[in-house]
């Protein structure tokens, strides 16, 4: 699975969590740029990603993320070493 594949799957997770099938994410997307990205939806995103890719995050990892691009990179790293 390459980064583009991961990106597409993560985009669908965002669309499901925010209940908006037109939502488009980019690497620079953040909680400030996406409506309703609050703390509960953030947990929903992380749980959705963990389930989709069968990976686990630590609190330090997820709190260090600055934008979607870093999130994708972290997923890519975990998927490659799994």
């Amino acid at each position, binding site marked *: 699975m390459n980064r583009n594949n991961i990106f597409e799957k993560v985009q669908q997770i965002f669309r499901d969590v925010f209940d908006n099938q037109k939502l488009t994410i980019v690497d620079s997307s953040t909680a400030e740029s996406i409506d309703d990205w609050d703390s*509960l939806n953030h*947990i*929903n995103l*992380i*749980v959705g990603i*963990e*389930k989709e890719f069968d990976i*686990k*995050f*630590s*609190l330090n*990892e*997820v709190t260090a993320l600055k934008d979607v691009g870093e999130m994708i990179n972290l997923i890519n790293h975990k998927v490659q070493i799994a």
Partner: protein
Amino acid sequence: MKTHQFHDLKLNDSEAFNVIITEKMMADFCLISGDNNPLHVDEAYAIENGFENRVVYGLLVSSFYSRLVGRHLPGKHALLHGIDIAFKKPVYVGDCLTVYGEITHLNAAYQQIEVQATITNQENLVVSKAKIKVGLHG
């Protein structure tokens, strides 16, 4: 009341309890919610519309999901994050319900668990299903 902390819990942990629906529960829920729809308060109307009797409020039945997480799984340290509920069959006064929940996912980063829950009646028919997200605090 259970006092499970996140680190005590594991996948497939489960809890269950029974409850009988009473007339008082129906009256209290009608008072609290203000929902006096005839399906819930008028026996003749309910029967005319194809039900055995007055239909118990779906959200009254669902209130036992609150007891499930707040008292049993995980108990004291629960903070309900969200719940998706489906109503499968009508419930009537006098029904004996079994409320069952099982942990299907644990998120360590945010100390959140997911509980797949079902409520079955005395005939072992599923009357409601729910996917519950619960955080743990303290």
